[in-house]
């Protein structure tokens, strides 16, 4: 029994990481109508930057604090230099461009850090088992789930309770309208893109003690994050949260009972959802 509970927790933790990625993808897609194929690459980059900060400063917390800021800047730079020229073109081009970007980032990291990857230790402060009555659970993983939950909540408050969030939501609904209202749409595109990238970076750092860091880590998780977005309903905030957690837990439980099928579960779920509810669990159109 406690095995099942443990697996459910593990599922929630890996689901939480997926949710952070999926929300960033969703935000960028909703506001800019761009699928950011390089989302996984920035996840990986965040993890590596966190790892190097950890080696340099000897503390995990430096990485967790600085990576979002650094990736915010990097995201803004990428949007200005590479994505911006494509706004007047077909939706296919940004997809292809971010795909190429992934290729470059992955190769660069392989070149600099090597292909083999590194293990990352969880911060010593959280290196204990959290007693949970009849079972216990690693404190670090609990921390990941809680922090991810707080970030999701913060993001939701940002979108629902601030004027910035109002503009972003309006842009998601109809970008022509906010252009007509005379809002400097362009500036918000940088912001939204950078925000999405920063979320991916945080997810990378949080995930690094769990799986270690390796150049392919972004590519592996990106597809699952796509599946989360599609299953939850494109552009749906709570859809992404729900489907991320559901997929995390389902995969985790399948690993326990029939590990052979674990990696297939998200895709089967997605095919089922596409067949019976094409707009996704909580999608609108």
């Amino acid at each position, binding site marked *: 029994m406690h095995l099942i509970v443990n697996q459910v927790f593990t599922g929630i933790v890996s689901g939480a990481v997926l949710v952070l990625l999926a929300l960033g993808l969703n935000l960028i897609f909703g506001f800019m109508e761009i699928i950011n194929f390089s989302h996984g690459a920035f996840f990986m980059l965040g993890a590596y930057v966190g790892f190097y900060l950890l080696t340099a400063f000897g503390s995990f917390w430096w990485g967790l604090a600085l990576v979002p800021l650094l990736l915010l800047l990097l995201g803004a730079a990428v949007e200005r230099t590479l994505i911006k020229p494509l706004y007047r073109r077909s939706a296919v081009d940004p997809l292809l461009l971010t795909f190429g970007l992934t290729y470059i980032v992955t190769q660069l990291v392989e070149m600099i850090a090597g292909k083999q990857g590194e293990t990352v230790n969880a911060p010593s402060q959280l290196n204990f088992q959290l007693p949970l009555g009849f079972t216990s659970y690693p404190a670090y993983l609990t921390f990941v789930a809680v922090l991810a939950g707080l970030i999701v909540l913060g993001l939701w408050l940002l979108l629902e309770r601030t004027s910035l969030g109002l503009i972003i939501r309006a842009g998601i609904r109809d970008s*022509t309208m906010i252009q007509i209202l005379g809002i400097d749409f362009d500036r918000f595109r940088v912001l939204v893109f950078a925000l999405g990238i920063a979320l991916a970076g945080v997810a990378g750092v949080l995930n690094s003690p769990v799986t270690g860091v390796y150049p392919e880590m972004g590519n592996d998780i990106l597809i699952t994050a796509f599946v989360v977005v599609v299953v939850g309903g494109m552009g749906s905030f709570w859809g992404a949260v729900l489907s991320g957690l559901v997929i995390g837990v389902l995969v985790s439980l399948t690993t326990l009972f029939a590990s052979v099928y674990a990696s297939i579960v998200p895709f089967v779920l997605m095919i089922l959802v596409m067949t019976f509810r094409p707009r996704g669990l909580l999608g609108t159109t």
Partner: protein
Amino acid sequence: MSAVEAEPEPGSERASGPLHLLRLLWRGRAWNQLVLLLLVMVGLFFLVPDPSLAVEVLIYSLWAISLNLLLGYGGLVSFGHALYWGFGGYAAGLTLLHVTHSLWVALGASMALCGLLALGSGVVCLRRRDVYFSMLTLAFAQLGYFIAFEARPVTGGDDGLGNIPTPPLDLPGLSLEMHPIRDPLPYFLLCAGILFFAFAFALLYTESPLGRVLQAIRESEERARGCGYNTRLVQLITFTVSGLLAGLAGGLDAIFNGLEGLQPYWSLSGVVVIMVILGGRSTLFGSVLGALVVLVLEHYLSISFGDWPLIVGAVFVVCVLVFPQGLWGLVRLEPLGSWGAVAWTRRLRARLSREPGA
């Protein structure tokens, strides 16, 4: 844009150039690409010192062409084209290992099974448009990868399916033993012949009524329906044809190497997308060009510079940014061609039409 240059209106041919006769023969300039293809094949034969590189260029060209039908002509960006390539390879390999020693049966199995697989997965993938479609194809490829990985008794798992015997080349009145490694010439000729016919078929496909509707759907699906077309059916037929050709390419590759290796989607589906975009998505010949450039770069750079994919990736990004029409567009001096500006106005209009109104 191909649609204009290739528009074969009666009486529109001008008497100029050495290809005039051919123009008259085929009543359309698009067919000139077949001549270019023949020139490339001859060039590969005489100029490329490594015969197995030449064969790989032919096989990857076929694969890139199959993707270009979807990506360039249909505007459907499939990031999972490795699924059909891999499945075709397993189909050919398993047929040769367990069923028969006939080349044609093996390749036929690749095509037929991949066609069926594409039909089935296409039904699901085409339920959604645009980027959803891309994600779904990607997910299907990943699903296929995991299945192949876990089905070790059948596929050999991550060791790949090895020891695929090379069948003899059976032609009417002729049976030729083939040794791809020792003497790649017969296999080169086989692949060249298949590529030629597949290329001609793909040209016909893009010039056919259905192919034209496919391009029309890329421009405006709503209007294509308004012309009386079941647009999803048109896309599904194309998806199936594309998967079938990709399967053929995969089968040829597995037989050539005697091995169907299991590679993650990244190194495969990605490479073929790069080939198509780099070569130019508006013409089929661009795909041949893309396959040629990427493989030759890989061949020579991988010796001196281990991180050659970095260069390919950088060239790719520059290409998307500055030359969306790819190398072929560069040859034809079409930087920032009509596609981009036109697509932008289309999206603007689509947005405006979504406004609530009478």
